[in-house]
């Protein structure tokens, strides 16, 4: 999997975003063992301390947990995973509405345009 980092944003927060996305999308499934910090750091081309910091923060958020001897795993807690999906959905929706509002659409117009987009049968959803 490829890693891309934007300029001017702390790398550890970008790692958290990317790893969170991988968990949400199932690239790392619930209960999966994660690669070691060193392997992840090598893969992403980042400093191991930075990767460690990101993993510690993901642990704090309950997205991953570590077993003392066997490594770090993706959470199997359904509540955490459901909340993760909800949070991501809200983030995307706020980005979308913000952009649509910027081009002058009001709430009803946004609702209509989303509905008709979903109704078009050439869409994937």
């Amino acid at each position, binding site marked *: 999997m490829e890693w891309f980092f934007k300029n*001017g944003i702390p790398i550890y927060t970008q790692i958290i975003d990317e790893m969170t996305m991988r968990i949400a999308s199932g690239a790392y499934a619930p209960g999966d063992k994660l690669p070691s910090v*060193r392997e992840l750091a*090598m893969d992403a081309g*980042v400093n191991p*301390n930075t990767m460690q910091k990101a993993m510690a923060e993901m642990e704090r958020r309950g997205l991953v947990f570590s077993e003392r001897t066997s490594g770090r795993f993706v959470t199997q807690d359904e509540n955490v995973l459901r909340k993760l999906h909800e949070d991501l959905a809200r983030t995307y929706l706020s980005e979308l509405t913000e952009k649509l509002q910027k081009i002058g659409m009001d709430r009803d117009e946004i609702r209509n345009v989303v509905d008709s987009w979903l109704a078009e049968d050439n869409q994937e959803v």
Partner: protein
Amino acid sequence: MARIEIEHLTKMFGSRIALEDVSLSLEKGQIVGLLGPNGSGKTTLIKTLNGLLTPTHGSVRINDMTPGVETKKRVAYLPDRTALPEHMTTLQLMELYADFFADFDRQKAEAMAEDLGIDFNQTLKKMSKGTKEKLQLILVMARKADVYLLDEPIGGVDPATRDYILKTIISNYNEDAVVVISTHLISDIESVLDDVVFIKDGKLVLHKTAEQIREEDGKSVDQLFREVFRC
């Protein structure tokens, strides 16, 4: 105890000031970028840390010792130009390193040389510039030192090799060592750095963590560098 402790270091070459009142303390467990334009004093600083140059004023300590025989056992140094005998082959150089440095891991060096497709029986003289640089870096990184001083390790190699070198630095990372990388190719290495040190005209102008620069300045290290050193 800091791995590297520099206090009020000034280095003069005749009447020219190469380094002026530089103080810097570097702890173990860090990868540090020593960044500055050409002629800013990066190489002079690294050579002083390695005992190849002596301070005009001030002091330099490695593991709380003045650079000398004892510190050289613990410092792995990649010079900015080839310092190895040109007539020697890869294999002979590995033997040389194994003889000289007790902490040299020959198996590791051979594995890295194989990864990079380096011919074990070719002499340094016959190697391309890039291959020479790769081999020298391998010899240095295969040591298990306390301090790694890498003077322009990625300057002359292609982007794919650059990636391999950075991955090698990451995979060799150990929390007891400090790695100092001098370069002006900042965008290539900035994601690997803990700490960033800018030097300009022989003076230390900034010492921050790379994440601080991204967070507080909202810039990449490369962008900040271009601002600080705008011509």
